[in-house]
């Protein structure tokens, strides 16, 4: 597997997983028909882009930002607001997506320029405050964002479930607007992912890696570290906004809880770190894993531990920990274990094995 940039997953197992993910996403509507499966699939595709864009920041420059959801939200609102006001269909989507990406990229670069001059640890704290400010704005500016309730809107007819592209079912599945939306999201997500792969493997990406390894040395070699970091932040923000626009199309709804909550930020961190920082392929796998955990780890916890809960003594103690709502606990434990033992994440660790 050698996508455009010449970058590869770096290990047969990783390559296999990536190909499997791609094949599964492409075949999904025909294998598992239904809104729920396509919802999960679309979510995976979108979070692959979102996690990869965060990886440009975290993995390729070593900066921890907690404001990444802000850019995701900008992209989502940029599509939702014009559509909700009925300003045309496809033009709104295109222009909104574009405007959102430009806004987010500019804002992201500006925040970076302002706060990267101070210590990197300040940056993390300041972005946390910025994220909470954004949540506040989104829920207070009721006229623009719909406040806490968010915005519900209609898509162009071709993307609605009622639309039939083919009169006859294909391989026994109806080809409707929902499926079109799904493939649109999948195609755009794939293009965005390949574009990011291309960027991190360009000379620009290599400078970013040099900065991550040793900022002082890169500065001494004549690279303006702040400029590069700000550019990386801008790119990461822009791609996050594009993912946000896709998310708006998928949900046909945008609200503070669905695009701005701290839970999403935590999800992104889990995806990137568990998958493997600085590999792009890792966050893609991480995104698939976490999104599936959201749905299926709950189900697994629901079905499994009745026997455990009935055990004497340890039952009452362990029961609450195995409750279906506590799935995030186990991901948290996995996350901490990975930061300790395999800081390179799944893909990074596989690559190291291969080299060793």
């Amino acid at each position, binding site marked *: 597997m050698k996508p455009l940039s010449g970058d590869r997953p770096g290990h047969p197992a990783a390559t296999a997983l990536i190909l499997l993910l791609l094949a599964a996403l492409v075949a999904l509507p025909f294998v598992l028909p239904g809104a729920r499966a396509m919802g999960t699939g679309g979510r995976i595709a979108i979070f692959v882009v979102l996690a990869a864009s965060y990886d440009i920041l975290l993995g390729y420059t*070593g900066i*921890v930002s907690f404001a990444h959801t802000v850019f995701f939200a900008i992209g989502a609102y940029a599509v939702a607001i014009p559509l909700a006001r009925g300003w045309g269909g496809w033009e709104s989507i295109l222009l909104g997506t574009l405007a959102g990406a430009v806004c987010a990229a500019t804002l992201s670069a500006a925040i970076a320029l302002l706060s990267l*001059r*101070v210590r*990197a*640890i*300040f940056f*993390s*704290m*300041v972005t*946390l*405050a*910025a994220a*909470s*400010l954004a949540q*506040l*704005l989104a829920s*207070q500016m009721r006229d623009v964002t719909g406040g806490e309730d968010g915005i519900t809107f209609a898509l162009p007819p071709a993307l609605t479930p009622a639309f039939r592209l083919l009169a006859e079912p294909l391989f026994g599945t109806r080809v409707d607007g929902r499926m079109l939306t799904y493939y649109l999201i999948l195609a755009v997500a794939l293009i965005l992912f390949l574009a990011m792969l291309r960027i991190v493997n360009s000379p620009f990406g290599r400078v970013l890696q040099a900065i991550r390894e040793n900022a002082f040395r890169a500065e001494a070699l004549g690279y303006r570290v702040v400029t590069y970091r700000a550019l990386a932040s801008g790119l990461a923000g822009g791609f996050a906004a594009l993912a946000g626009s896709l998310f708006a199309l998928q949900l046909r709804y945008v609200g503070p809880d669905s695009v701005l909550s*701290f839970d999403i930020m*935590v999800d992104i*961190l889990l995806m990137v*770190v568990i998958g493997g920082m600085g590999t792009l392929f890792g966050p893609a796998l991480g995104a698939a894993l976490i999104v599936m955990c959201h749905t299926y780890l709950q189900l697994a916890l629901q079905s499994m531990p009745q026997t455990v809960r009935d055990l004497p003594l340890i039952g009452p103690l362990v029961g*609450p*920990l195995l*409750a279906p*709502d*506590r799935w*995030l*606990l186990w*991901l*948290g*434990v996995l*996350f*901490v274990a990975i*930061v*300790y033992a395999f*800081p390179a994440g799944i893909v990074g660790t596989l690559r190291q094995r291969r080299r060793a």
Partner: protein
Amino acid sequence: MKPPSWSPVLIVPLLALAALPAMAGATWITLTVAGVTMGVMLFLMASGLTLVFGLMDVLNFAHGAFVTLGAFVAVSVMGALAGQAEAASWGANLAALGAAAAAAAAACGAVGWVFERVIVRRVYGSHLRQILITVGGLIIAQQLILAGWGAAPLHVGKPLMLRGSISLAGAAIETYRLAALAVGLVLFALMLGVLNRTRVGLLVRAGVENREMVEALGFRIRRLFVGVFVAGAALAGVGGAMWAVYQETVTVAIGAEMTILVFIVVIIGGLGSVGGCFAGAILVGLAANYVGFLAPRLALGTNIALMVAILLWRPRGLLPVSKS
């Protein structure tokens, strides 16, 4: 290099004075007491974070979990001591509140000790891993609290005698605020006493400035750090307990909400500085109350605006710690 100047702290009384012409005198007194009380509680929550950072360069993003834990422990203890809390007796009321705060401190101190051993210990030196691992710790801690207490908001009543308010120069002041203020000020004084009058305090102040040299003088700074971490967790627990009883409602989100305020406080104060942390906490408390009265719509964004303004004025905070 000159020794640090305390003059930036003057911004705190200046802010209070600047608010005076904008409102009636009695209102001003009420708001100022409320602001200082909130500030004192914020200080309790933030002091451990800033000292831990100063001493070991460790930024604990899970510090808010101690606030949450303290809040929940206090609610449980208050529930168990409902008899004392509902009695029309100052002694019984204060004993219940004191027991709740003490239990919160003990629980958070113990959890802090475990947290330092299991989560923080092996990631010294790398900020990236620190942030990640403590965020992981935060996720786990929140989930454990949810497993223990459930997701529904819990209610807790203030002790009976602390429910009303007293009148001071025509201004109504909630009794509970005065109690919280007293607790906060006593703990602050205690902390200053330990830092400035004891050998352990001397070591902490020296360690904040130059950890290596303290070690080269033969002191095991690791033990000192564990002590400070545990004490900081316990103080955050007390802060969470006082805050929970003040709010009368607790959800697991309290930690995340307070984390942002606490970060703003330590950034404003200057990371590592206890005096700066106190000034920053009072400043945030005052600003929140004044703006909340004068322009309620702006209230929630005030803290962030305040932080940006202070950072533009003094990029390293009010009382930065010099590292050598």
